[in-house]
């Protein structure tokens, strides 16, 4: 029997479940390696060469090089692991989250300051987009 995924109909959301965890294993472990200062340095010096030390898919490597967080998440990345990557870049969770919504940083920050994204229209896929 397949895994039951009651969250599959939540829009704009990838739950880090068994399937995603398997798909993203090496991508996430690569991110973990950036918790060491010397690895951060080596990565910054030559990103491509550092990535090639990991058995990651081409799609995963390209998503990392492009800093496309939606693509990384689709390829099995988890935000708390990816945090090591944007922290290496000197960026915050707010920056990374904004980059995934298609909003500018400023618009995202303003949305948060005015109470955040409303759940209205954002609970089920196919609902008319609100907030």
């Amino acid at each position, binding site marked *: 029997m397949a895994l039951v995924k*009651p*969250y599959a109909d*939540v*829009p*704009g*959301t*990838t*739950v*880090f*479940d*068994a399937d995603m*965890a398997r798909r993203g*294993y090496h991508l*996430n*472990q690569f*991110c*973990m390696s*950036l*918790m*060491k*200062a010397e690895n*951060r340095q080596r990565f910054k010096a030559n990103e491509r060469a550092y990535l090639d030390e990991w058995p990651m898919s081409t799609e995963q490597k390209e998503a990392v090089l492009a800093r496309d*967080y*939606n693509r990384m*998440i689709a390829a099995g990345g*988890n*935000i*708390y*692991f990816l*945090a*090591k*990557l*944007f*922290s*290496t870049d*000197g960026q*915050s*969770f*707010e920056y*990374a*989250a*904004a980059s*995934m*919504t*298609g909003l500018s940083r400023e618009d*995202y920050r303003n*949305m*948060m*300051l005015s*109470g*955040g*994204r*409303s*759940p209205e229209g*954002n*609970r*089920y896929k196919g609902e008319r987009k609100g907030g």
Partner: protein
Amino acid sequence: MARITAGVTTSHVPAIGAAIDLGKTGEDYWKPLFAGYEFSKKWMKRQKPDVILLVYNDHACAFDMKIIPTFAIGCAEEFQPSDEGWGPRPVPVVRGYPELGWHIAQSVIQDDFDLTIINEMTVDHGLTVPLSLMFGQVGEWPCRVIPFAVNVVVYPPPSGQRCYNLGKSIRKAIQSFDRDLNVQVWGTGGMSHQLQGARAGLINREFDQRFLDRLRNDAEGLAKMPHIDYVREAGSEGIELVMWLIMRGALNPDAKEVHRFYHVPASNTAVGHVIYENSD
């Protein structure tokens, strides 16, 4: 015997830690947030707990994808702050309480909760930000801390019911520890937030308020809420809230709420904070 005197819940947003560490707490953006903890810091000074059992989640720091324990109790003498990618937070080392940690492990494992025992690990913002919020910037944390890590990163986390029942078992374990100790149990994380995808930035004030009310008045019912409700209503990362139910289970059902604070936003997150005192 050891007594559980109080419970605390608070969000543990990393940006709050950064604001404290970089001296930004007086900025307009952060002022209202830190104002909500002024009462709490004074309250902490009066309470003087000997030890805090601090329920939190590791955010891919102590645990990576190699080993994913659902419940892990830290039994080491001390825990260093993690380097989360920008160097460790400049906060004191966390001093543990191995004797009580092992006592809790032995007791709740025999009560059917299979904990993982951790003798070496670092602790990330999930644990150190609540300490900073409640104690401020100090040279040394004024009490011992037993880190209690819950997996809420890889789906599925433990159910709310499981967390609530575990809290009750932890209560029995602490109360059977043969030493006169003032113990607090904290539950951290949440409230509504989503850090990924097109729905990032989701905040559900109504859900959060109801959660705070039910945590006080209807914890038994709240414990039955399924995961999907957390994900849909409070965001993919809002599911951290199950950890608050461990704290609630460890407190008396009639524990008194002495402080409540709610604020949006801290970075991407709705911040919730409650203090309960046990009546006896």
